[in-house]
């Protein structure tokens, strides 16, 4: 028997899986794609999700919607804050993953810190956006007329390609803080952080199904994200001219909200605002009869 020294340990590599319904399955299709670093070395194999994975994710998101949308604003805020806390504790892991995907150490640290801060920012808005965007409307009759926001439902998100963590979080946070549930296709070129972020969500009291994260090819899945009848809104980025048109026409099938977010510099604090929450809210107006 060979003696094994203390420093000749076999490293344990992480298997990057997808996140559906609070679990970490592999894609049902059994397919994967290799991710390479700047030196063209394979860093990891990632799941190449199929349309069935997407369908399963939507089923899970729909199932999670009633409870999540009726949870109190306070609770949703607490949970977003909790995500930020968990992310803070795993800063080093995210920084090294971003470095693996080509960022300098300094930029990586800035991105992780900005991501944590962004979660705190939206956590704070959880019990405030409703007051800001709701209204009592003047009407010319004996009615008390008021408008309030309600979450639209299941939101599919094609995450920004160029910002593996901050772009992802900047799109997820405003959607879920408003009571929606979501299915995300992670950045194709920078997917590592999305899987690790799913692990953070998993440890943060986010109910199963509220966030589902897939990895895979955007070209293959965009059509599914845009056509599914049980998806109420689609957020996309990196429009190359043709994608927006395709998405718009496919989404018309069930009149999804289509929310383009192109060329947004997510690292700028100017681009964080409560209108991102309102993008996936519906306005409900009530006419309540009153005596003279």
């Amino acid at each position, binding site marked *: 028997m060979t003696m094994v020294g203390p420093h000749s340990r076999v490293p344990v590599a992480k298997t990057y899986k997808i996140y559906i319904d609070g679990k970490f399955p592999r894609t049902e299709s059994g397919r994967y794609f290799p991710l390479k670093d700047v030196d063209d070395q394979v860093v990891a194999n990632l799941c190449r999700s199929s349309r069935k994975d997407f*369908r399963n994710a*939507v089923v899970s998101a*729909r199932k999670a919607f009633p409870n999540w949308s009726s949870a109190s604003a306070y609770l949703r805020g607490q949970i977003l804050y909790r995500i930020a806390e968990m992310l803070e504790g795993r800063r080093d892991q995210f920084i090294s993953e971003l470095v693996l995907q080509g960022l300098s150490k300094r930029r990586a640290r800035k991105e992780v810190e900005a991501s944590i801060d962004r979660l705190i920012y939206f956590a704070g808005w959880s019990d405030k956006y409703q007051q800001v965007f709701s209204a009592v409307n003047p009407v010319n009759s004996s009615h008390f007329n008021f408008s309030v926001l309600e979450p639209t439902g299941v939101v599919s998100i094609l995450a920004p390609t160029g910002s593996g963590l901050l772009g992802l979080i900047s799109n997820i946070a405003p959607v879920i803080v408003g009571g929606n549930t979501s299915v995300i296709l992670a950045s194709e070129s920078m997917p590592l952080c999305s899987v690790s972020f799913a692990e953070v969500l998993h440890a943060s009291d986010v109910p199963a199904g509220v966030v589902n994260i897939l990895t895979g090819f955007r070209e293959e899945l965009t059509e*599914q994200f845009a*056509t*599914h*009848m*049980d998806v109420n809104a689609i957020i996309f980025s990196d429009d190359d001219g043709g994608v927006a048109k395709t998405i718009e026409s496919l989404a018309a*099938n*069930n009149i999804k909200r289509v929310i383009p977010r192109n060329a947004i510099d997510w690292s700028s604090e100017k681009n964080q605002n409560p209108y991102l929450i309102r993008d996936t809210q519906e306005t409900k107006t009530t006419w309540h009869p009153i005596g003279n």
Partner: protein
Amino acid sequence: MSPTAVLKNIDFPDLNQVPLVDEVGVHERAARFQARSIKKSSKIEALRSVLSMIDLTTLEGQDTPGKVRQLCQKALHLHNALPDLPNVAAVCVYPTMVGVAREVLGDSPIKVASVATAFPSGMTPRQVKLEETRIAVAEGADEIDMVISRGAFLQGDHHFVFDEIAEIKTACGKAHLKVILETGELGTLDQVRRASMLAMHAGADFIKTSTGKIKPAATLPVTLVMLHAIRDYYYQVDRMVGMKPAGGISNSKLAIHYLIMLQETLGTSWMTSEWFRFGASSLANDVLMQLQKQASGVYQSADYFSRD
């Protein structure tokens, strides 16, 4: 051979001759049925078959005539956007709702099934059960779903259970009798197989897994054991008996797995609503959504289908 012709020579089966069930083998076999690859055209055919075999069911204490009328309307108009859909097999209700269902369904090919015999527990005296059965049939039920006395069966009083089923069968007259074993309360697969034999010998036209009120309800392994019993009985007596898994089958994929199991265990003769049924409420919508998906190529939302 028609069921009534056989009933003249019913006799009590020797339950000691019922083979013991290889539980591990049954579970492995059942798991195999779930690993088949089904191509699109077969899937569409299978979905249509599933739809035609559904007993659309509402068995709640809160049922009202309005709710039953709504369910019957759903049975008559499953999803008008899809033309040429098959009918569901039946609407299954409590005895007090049989009249309402009959009135709405009229002379449509959709049958009215009624549970009876103090469903779901079965804990009333026999005279009451018989009277309940007669009333349901008089109100217009084409099919009666009775529960067996599980307490008596588990005590070993097989003759009591046998006699009860035989008497209810007589009370049914022309109505078909489905016998619910409530497999979730029987404990072992051996007991399921014995109870199946007992029920068939006593005159059951169908054997059915569960009331839907007890968990576990229908599972693939339990259904497989019952299908084996049906096959044995067919070889012994030369009479076909139907099978109805009920409870817990709410998605199309699982339902198709049941059909694969049926085909590979009993064969094509059983692949119609005359010999196989699903007791379900939410399954129909899932099948409709899958069919619409196959027609349109787009995954569907429950928002666009009628409520159960």
